[in-house]
């Protein structure tokens, strides 16, 4: 990653120093509505960096979900359309088909994508729609007050599973990205995490790869980011990150689930398992102190 590429003169460094980190222009200069410690901000930031590095903001039409990220359009300065709950992949399909030249991005949470929107995501993937889907899985309905999601871990207490998720009554967590990866229309599917700096670097590489798939004319590409919800999980931000690294990552294994780009994958990172070395170019991403 060439850091100075997106500093765009907004922040200049003294002559004897080199600016190595700045806010991408496409990321709005405002504080977010997200709760303290929430992973959405990190994922927005990664998206902003990737879009900037791939020179995509002017071509992007993004689809916002219903859920905590409903206001994503306040933070990423691209064209946005609001989708009804779960319908983002269908809305993106409509955009894709009439605007072949656009970069089409969806951003959905786990309630949106893995519960109410399962038909839309499955069939967009099955059609191999040339869209890039960002799927933020924090295992809970955050915006409505911390109810159980299809992705909630077994035993996890939520406001609608107050005694913990009991599989005989409430079923099992869905690994929907693995389900989607079986479809031949899916060119790339991967799961990353916002648990720490190393994971965030790998997640960025995955997002970049999923965007490149679209640019290169591939099919459906999805990156699931397992993320934390300190408020919904009843944890401090630090506890929630430890939980994310532990039980959540064990339930939702990190890495590339499918990569059908083949030889066309090119030098960009993301096609290697997340357990491998961080990709060149992504290692410089560090969370802000």
């Amino acid at each position, binding site marked *: 990653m060439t850091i100075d590429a997106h500093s765009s003169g907004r922040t200049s460094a003294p002559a004897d120093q080199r600016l190595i980190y700045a806010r991408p222009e496409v990321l709005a200069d405002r504080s977010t509505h997200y709760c303290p410690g929430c992973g959405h901000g990190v994922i927005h930031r990664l998206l902003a960096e990737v879009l900037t590095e791939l020179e995509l903001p*002017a*071509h992007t039409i993004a689809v916002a979900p219903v859920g905590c990220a409903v206001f994503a359009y306040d933070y990423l300065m691209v*064209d946005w359309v609001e989708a009804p709950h779960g*319908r983002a992949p*269908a*809305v993106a399909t*409509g955009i894709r088909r009439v605007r072949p030249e*656009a970069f089409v991005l969806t951003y959905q949470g786990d309630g949106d994508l893995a519960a109410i929107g399962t*038909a*839309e995501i499955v069939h967009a993937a099955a059609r191999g729609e040339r869209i890039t889907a960002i799927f933020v899985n924090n295992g809970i309905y955050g915006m409505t007050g911390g109810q159980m999601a299809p992705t909630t871990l077994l035993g996890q207490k939520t406001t609608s599973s107050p005694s913990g998720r009991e599989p005989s009554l409430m079923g099992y967590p869905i690994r929907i990205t693995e389900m989607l990866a079986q479809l031949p229309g899916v060119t790339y599917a991967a799961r990353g995490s916002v648990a720490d700096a190393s994971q965030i670097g790998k997640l960025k590489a995955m997002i970049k790869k999923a965007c490149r798939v679209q640019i290169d004319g591939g099919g459906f590409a999805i990156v699931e980011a397992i993320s934390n919800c300190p408020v919904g999980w009843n944890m401090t931000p630090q506890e929630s990150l430890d939980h994310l690294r532990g039980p959540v990552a064990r339930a939702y294994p990190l890495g590339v689930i499918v990569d059908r780009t083949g030889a066309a994958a090119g030098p960009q990172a993301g096609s290697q398992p997340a357990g491998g070395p961080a990709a060149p170019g992504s290692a410089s991403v560090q969370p802000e102190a």
Partner: protein
Amino acid sequence: MTAHHEGSGPASPPSPAGMPATISAGDSARRSRVLMKGNEAIAEAAIQAGCDAYFGYPITPQAELLEWMARRMPELGRVFVQAESELGAINMALGAAATGARVMVSSSSPGISLMAEAMSYMAGSGTPMVLVNVMRAGPGLGGIGPSQSDYFQATKGHGHGDYRVPVLAPASIDEAVELVATAFELAEKYRTPVMLVADGILGQAMEPVSLRFRTPERRTGDWALTGAAGRPPRIVKSIDLVPEVLERRNLDLQRKYREIRRHEVRWDEWQLEDAEYAIVAYGTAARVARSAVARARERGIKVGLFRPVTLWPFPERELARVSQHVHGILTVELSSGQMVEDVRLAVEGRCPVAFHGRMGGLVPTPDEVLGALKALRGKVQRAAADPALHHDGGRS
């Protein structure tokens, strides 16, 4: 705009099976008459109106519309997608329309129910789109026979929230062809979804079609999502969590609806000049009513037909004027009586309003309608003979 706009159609597109070669071959050919199914004529009218993208899901009795689009749109280089559900179809339409494309979706009653959610979002965000409902009998899965039992759904509240959509109701395939173009016009002029309601008969019947296609001029707004190159980002949305802001948004919508009420009311009158009675009916019911009017006139009953073409906005002032000159009004529908509520609101008790309808996919015969008309006349005459009997607006 997208690259798929061909204006009035390319000079000589390949002709699909069953498609008259003359259909897009210029103005003189456009005035020829061919035998077409209503569903097919509506589909072709949308194509000739410059529809860039169609999204659908199979359902009887509108499947021919989807099939026509499946053949024609790809050969014109335009977009056809068979969605995974009606939810999928209308949300694809939402996405495509948000970029400024001219978009149509069609379905029949149960599928239209599924589309209510996105319609509300489109009304709220000002997204133009044309939705065709080839109505079938309900409730629930009901049957596949013709019906007008989605009048409430179309005019009173398809989805949630304070919104309205213009509803156009053709009574012939020729009129459907014209109103498809009108629907696109209204959708773009007012930035709103527009519904065109037909019924199973209009969709399935074949009749000579004039092929008077029309391509409305495009109104490209400064709202369409095209990628924020050289301009600030645009957002197509309906959400506003600040009550004052959301109320302003609602007030803007209501202003738009007043404009539509003022300028877009459409209706048709037949033999009302000397009429002592009026039948109010739309769509297929109006064609039955027309036959009933002719038979009644043969028997010396002076009756005329008042036919709403826009179900919303309802031609209430025009009907109120008619109600001042007649002794009674009979409303005929393929339902239990839905539009009749708007008829009574417009008439405001100035004369009795009676109702005759059939349900379940049945269509009243002209003789049935004539019988209902005679019953109304008998009641009015008895009331006139005995001033102690005040009419009750036909409610009993």
